[in-house]
């Protein structure tokens, strides 16, 4: 399954999700007022050291930042026009640092654990136990729908190609959508039939 999660266990994997998220929030808040680029650079070195300690796979994740390179360059260019290079370096370093810190949590925490860590927050926000259960099911369903949609479209495309030798035209989107909505209704019926009482959230046995 697609995930930003690193499958190999590391010491950071053992830290509870709630603790990691709290630490991330505090660190991010603490970073916002820091304007000294030397401090931020030291922080970045520290975070990169943690990545290196986690192994080669973790370091490879940094490459995922590549689409942001242009953006960083543009931000730096603007900052250099309007402010000193120290300010420019500080703002870029802070941005990279915050992104890498957050990715550190994502890499070492399973989605289920993140969901579990979210539950007390939702409880505080006034979500009932039933609606919390519903939400976690919906997240799983949404994530599962992604490969399903891709598979269904590919099957349709292959059938079209086999008969015409060309790619499925965009017109095929309409029946594809109809098929997809039918699938979603079938899953809803299947859940209903198995006693997933969405209105009451009562577990039937």
């Amino acid at each position: 399954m697609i995930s930003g999660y690193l499958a190999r266990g590391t010491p950071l994997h053992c830290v509870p999700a709630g603790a990691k998220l709290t630490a991330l929030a505090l660190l991010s808040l603490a970073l916002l007022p820091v304007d000294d680029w030397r401090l931020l650079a030291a922080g970045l070195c520290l975070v990169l050291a943690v990545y290196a300690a986690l192994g080669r796979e973790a370091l490879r994740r940094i490459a995922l930042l590549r689409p942001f390179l242009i953006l960083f360059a543009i931000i730096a260019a603007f900052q250099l026009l309007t402010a000193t290079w120290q300010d420019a370096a500080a703002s870029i370093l802070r941005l990279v640092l915050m992104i890498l810190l957050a990715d550190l949590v994502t890499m070492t925490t399973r989605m289920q654990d993140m969901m579990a860590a979210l539950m007390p927050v939702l409880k505080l926000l006034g979500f009932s136990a039933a609606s919390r259960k519903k939400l976690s099911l919906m997240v799983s369903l949404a994530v599962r729908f992604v490969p399903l949609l891709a598979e269904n479209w590919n099957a349709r495309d292959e059938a079209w190609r086999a008969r015409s030798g060309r790619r499925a035209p965009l017109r095929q989107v309409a029946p594809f959508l109809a098929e997809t909505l039918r699938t979603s209704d079938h899953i809803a019926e299947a859940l209903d039939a198995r006693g997933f009482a969405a209105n009451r959230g009562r577990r039937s046995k």
Partner: protein
Amino acid sequence: MSVRDMLLIALFAGIIAALGLLPPINLPLAGGVPITAQSLGVTLAGVMLGAQRGALAAALFLIAVALGAPLLAGGRGGISVFTGPTAGFILGFVPAAFVTGWLFEAWSARLGVFLEATTAALIGGYLVLNLLGIPVLAWIKNQTFREAGAVALTLLPGGVLKAVATGVVGYLAEGLGTRRG
């Protein structure tokens, strides 16, 4: 909310995510904002599900992303996207879906589905999204009003194209009688 509504919301969150599998276009003129098919999913959710469920679908997608699923176009995910420079656009998905759905519902078949859906998607998917996304970007980049305007103009052709695509799908769905409006 019925089980069927839950599934529709999850499905459209999935559709937004699946559209992110199409490779994004990175134009230097767009100031680092990737042009993706993802916002098409957002306006589609608004048109097909209506304001409330459409916004919920967009919110569900963001929750899945926040929990670490790399579903944003270009394979990004996790909490870091909400502190990044394009955070305004990403968080803007929810109001964008809501406004699109609300406008589409409010019109109730006088202009014809295609025109209504296209206009609603243009306002929701382009105007609302940029009104939220560009100030955040400009704030992080210390941009002037004019530079921010240039970004908005660069994103306009894609925005129009995606709005028309929303209109076409809305029209096709109406023909099939599958719209869950």
